[in-house]
C-alpha cells in the first residue's frame, strides 16, 4: 500500500497549492505533537536528577550523563523484568498465532453444525470487559497456585477473539477452496492441509497478529499489577510503576527504564510495520 498508492479518491484537492501547504503544515504540526513527548522523555533520561525539571527547559542535556541508566541497571533487577516481559510475550505470541490461525481456518473454510452460534459466541467475547473477570480470575488463579508469570501471564491470553476474526477474514478473502480440494485429493489430512498448505499462505496476517499480540502481552498492565507479587518476577511496566511509586517519583530512575522498555516494542513495530498496519485493516474493512 505504501509504494503503489491507490488512485485519487479525492480529486478535488488536486492542484490547490495553498490547500497542499495547509495540509502538509497540519500534518507536520501533528507529527511534532506525536513525537515531542517521546523526545522529551529520551532527553530527560540523560539529564541529572536536578536538571530534569529545570527552568527554562533545555532539550539537549548538559551535562549529559549515563548515570541514570547505570543506577537503574545496577540498583534494580531491570534485566530480570525485561526477560520476563519479553519471554512471556514471545511465548504467548507464538501460541496465540497458532490457535487463532487454526480456529480462523475452521470458521473460514468449513461448514459445520452450530457454526454461526459458535462464531457469535467467540465474537461476543470481544465485548466482555476485563474488569468483570479481574477479581474472580485473580482469586481462581491464586487459589489454584498458578500465580507465576509463566502460567498466568501466558495461558489465559493466548486465544484472542480479535485474532481469530482477523484470520478468518483473511482466509476467506485470500485462500481459494481449490487448493484445499487439491490437497485433499492428494490424500492430505485436514490438519496436514492446515499445516502445509494454509499456514504458509498466511504469512502476512500471521505477522500482523504476531506484532499485535506481542504488543498486547508486553504492554499489559492491570493483570500483572494485581497478580505478580515477587520483585524478581515483575514485568517491565510493573517494575517501572512500582519503582516510580516506591522511589518518590524519581524521574531520573524511571525515565531510562521507560526508554529501555520501549526499545523492543518500537523495534518490533518498525520492523514489521507493513504487515501489522495492513493486516489490522483486513478484518475491519471487508468484514
Amino acid at each position: 500500500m505504501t509504494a503503489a498508492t491507490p488512485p485519487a479518491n479525492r480529486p478535488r484537492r488536486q492542484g490547490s497549492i495553498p490547500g497542499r501547504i495547509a495540509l502538509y503544515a497540519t500534518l507536520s504540526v501533528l507529527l511534532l505533537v506525536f513525537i515531542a513527548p517521546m523526545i522529551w522523555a529520551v532527553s530527560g533520561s540523560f539529564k541529572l536528577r536536578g536538571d530534569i525539571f529545570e527552568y527554562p527547559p533545555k532539550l539537549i542535556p548538559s551535562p549529559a550523563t549515563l548515570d541514570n541508566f547505570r543506577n537503574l541497571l545496577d540498583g534494580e533487577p531491570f534485566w530480570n523484568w525485561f526477560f520476563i516481559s519479553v519471554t512471556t510475550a514471545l511465548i504467548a505470541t507464538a501460541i496465540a498465532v497458532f490457535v487463532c490461525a487454526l480456529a480462523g481456518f475452521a470458521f473460514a473454510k468449513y461448514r459445520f453444525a452450530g457454526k454461526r452460534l459458535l462464531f457469535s459466541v467467540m465474537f461476543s467475547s470481544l465485548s466482555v470487559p476485563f474488569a468483570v473477570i479481574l477479581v474472580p480470575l485473580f482469586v481462581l488463579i491464586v487459589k489454584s497456585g498458578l500465580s507465576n508469570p509463566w502460567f498466568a501471564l501466558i495461558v489465559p491470553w493466548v486465544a484472542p477473539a480479535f485474532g481469530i476474526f482477523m484470520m478468518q477474514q483473511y482466509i476467506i478473502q485470500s485462500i481459494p477452496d481449490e487448493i484445499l480440494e487439491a490437497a485433499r485429493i492428494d490424500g492430505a489430512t485436514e490438519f496436514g492441509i492446515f499445516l502445509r498448505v494454509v499456514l504458509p499462505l498466511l504469512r502476512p496476517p500471521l505477522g500482523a497478529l504476531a506484532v499485535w499480540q506481542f504488543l498486547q502481552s508486553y504492554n499489559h498492565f492491570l493483570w500483572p499489577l494485581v497478580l505478580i507479587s515477587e520483585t524478581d518476577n515483575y514485568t517491565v511496566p510493573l517494575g517501572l510503576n512500582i519503582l516510580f511509586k516506591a522511589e518518590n517519583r524519581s524521574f531520573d530512575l524511571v525515565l531510562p527504564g521507560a526508554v529501555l522498555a520501549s526499545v523492543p516494542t518500537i523495534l518490533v513495530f518498525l520492523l514489521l510495520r507493513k504487515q501489522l498496519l495492513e493486516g489490522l485493516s483486513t478484518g475491519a474493512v471487508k468484514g
Partner: protein
Amino acid sequence: MTSLSARPDGKRRQLAPYAFIAPFYILYALFMIVPIGAGIYLSMTDWVGLGTPEFVGLDNFADLARDTSFHKALGNSLIYVLISIFVVVPAALLIAQALNTKGLRARDLFRVTFFIPMVLSPIVIALVYSLLLDRDYGLLNSVLRALFGAGNTNWLGDPTLAKVSVGFVMLWRWVGYLTIFFLAGLQAVPKERYEAAQLDGAGMWRTFTAVTLPGIRPVTAFIVVTSFIGAAQIFDEPFLITGGGPGEETLSVAMFVYRAAFDRQQFGYAAAAGLVLFVIVFGISQVLNRLLSIGRTS
C-alpha cells in the same frame, strides 16, 4: 464466501473444524465463562479476601446503587466513552482523510509516527505525560510561561482539566491506531463513485456525506464499537496519570473495581461492580453489533 460442500466420505472432515476451534473454546470456558460464573457468586458475598465469604444476597448491588463514588465512576466512564466516540474517532477519520490525499509524500512516515504511541507501554506514556503536565515544573507549563508569561495551569489537579488531560492522552494514544482502519476503509471506496459525484457537481461536503461516509460504513461501525468497548473499560490512562484524582474526578469503573478489591479488600463489592459494567457494556455492544451488523460469519 464460498465454503466446502460437506461430503459423505469425510467423517473426520466433519470433526476437524470442531477440533480446530476446540483450543479457543477450552480457554474461553476456563478463563472467561468460569470466572464470570465465579464473579456472579462473589458478587453476592461480603469477603475481605480471607476467611469465609459471607452470603449477602443482592446487598452489594443495593449498596452500589447508593454509592456516590460508583455513580461518579459511571459518569466518568461515560465521559471517556463520549470522548472516544465523538473526539478520537472523528479525529482519526480526519487524519485518515488527510493521509488519503492523492500524491501525498511521506504518507508512510506520518502513518507510522501516528501509530507509535499505540506500541508504547501505558506506564511509559504516563511517565512521559507526568513529565509534561506537572503544574510547577512540567514542560507544557514551562513553555506557556516562556511564551505567554503565564503558565500555572493545574493540568492534573483541576477537575475539568484533569478529564481533558486524560482525554488528550486517550486521543494521543489511540488516534493513530484508528487512523489505520479508516485509511484502509477510505482506500477501499471505489473511485468511480467519486467520479460520479464529481460529474453531478457535488461539493466537498456533499461528496463526503454522499460517497465517503456510506463507503466506509462497515469500518466505521467496527471502529465505533471497538472504541466504545475500549473506553468503557478504560483503566490504564486515568490510573497511571491522575490516579483517579483530583478526588474522584477521573475515576473510571474499572479503577473502581480495582480499588474496591485490591485497595479496600472488598472483593464481593468489586465483583458486583464488575458485573454491572459487564451487563452495560455487553448489552450495548450486542445491540450495536446487531444494528450495525458486525461480526457475522459471512
